[in-house]
């Protein structure tokens, strides 16, 4: 290769490497802010501030969903396989919200350790199966095994 071209090639590679390193360092420094939500473990460890608008994500614990008799309130627990977080929500849940499926809730952590949510989003998984295949698979829940949500 011609020496001048070789030099320009090296310059281009250095440009890409340096800018990638810069962005990499910034992203690494902000790693705590890059997550869209806290895992229930972070709540158990006391890393989450009280009475501030925050988000939590995890698997809806099968059997934990309880609906109130006289109001729209619905109680459920989300888990990351290690810790559970109790959530109370008073609006309409998204269609794909289900036990054994992941959900992301936005709201405030109350002093008693429960989360009062004002928004619940369903976080669907990356699996796509026809209904008959899904039925034949034992245990349709996909996020309860403690794997990363």
């Amino acid at each position, binding site marked *: 290769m011609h020496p001048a*071209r070789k030099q*320009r*090639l090296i310059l*281009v590679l250095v*440009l*890409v490497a340096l*800018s*990638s390193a810069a*962005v*990499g360092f910034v*992203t690494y420094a902000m*790693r705590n802010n*890059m*997550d*869209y*939500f*806290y*895992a229930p473990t972070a709540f158990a460890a006391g890393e989450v501030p009280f009475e501030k608008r925050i988000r939590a*994500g995890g698997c809806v614990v099968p059997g934990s969903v309880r609906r109130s008799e006289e109001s729209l309130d619905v109680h459920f627990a989300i888990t990351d396989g290690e810790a559970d977080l109790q959530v109370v929500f008073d609006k309409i849940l*998204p*269609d*794909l*919200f*289900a036990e054994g*499926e992941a959900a*992301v809730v936005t709201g405030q952590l109350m002093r008693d350790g429960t989360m009062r949510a004002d*928004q*619940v*989003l*369903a*976080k*669907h*998984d*990356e*699996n*796509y*199966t*026809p*209904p*008959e*295949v*899904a*039925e034949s698979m034992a245990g*349709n829940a996909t996020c309860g095994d403690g794997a990363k*949500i």
Partner: protein
Amino acid sequence: MAWQWFHRLGSPRWFYEKTSAWLPWLAAASALLLAVGMAWGLGFAPQDAKQGNSYRIIFIHVPAAFLALAGYYLMAISGAIGLIWKMKLSFVVMRAAAPIGAALTFVSLFTGAVWGKPTWGTYWVWDARITSMLILFFLYVGVIALSGAFAREQLADKACALLALVGTVNIPIIYKSVDWWFTLHQPATIKLTESSSIDPSMFYPLLTMIIGFYCFYAWVLILHTRTLVLKRESRTQWVQQLLGEGR
């Protein structure tokens, strides 16, 4: 010598004449693949067990996102080749790729929002995947804006190439964002190293759509590059001759 073919490739005239024959084939292949993939995906693939019919937007969303990312690399590498070898045609390809990439990024963001409402319960969240995809859109728009911001074409070429190259850092971030951080967006379905988590009855129409999008991308990119070549070379003899013949 070994580099001769490479330098010949850099000739706009050679490119224009050579690609004339490819265009109808690419157009036919993309029309056929997209028609088959669309009918197969929307009409014949089964419903998803959880999402029902709404998952079918995957047949547009995923191919558009694939090409938005791959197209960015194509744009940046064309810019690098232009910078290193001072190749005019390479810069033209880079500039032609920018609006196509921006359009595909917009399509994937838009279809993602449409898909998000029935499944997640919201059109938009600021999670790492969606935000980095929005940055990709701005990078494409930035290259388009820069290319029009200089009076001298050579300066614009260099500026666009530098911006495109610096922006390449965003591509692995978009790709890995769902694995590195907690996001609302689910992790990748189609995996290179392990088996994909999509049923074969849905995977094959999706694959047809992806290949169709690749053909469509190649077709549109070559068409746009040819237009830009004619514009840039409008004063040269071969373009004048070509225009004379067409008249």
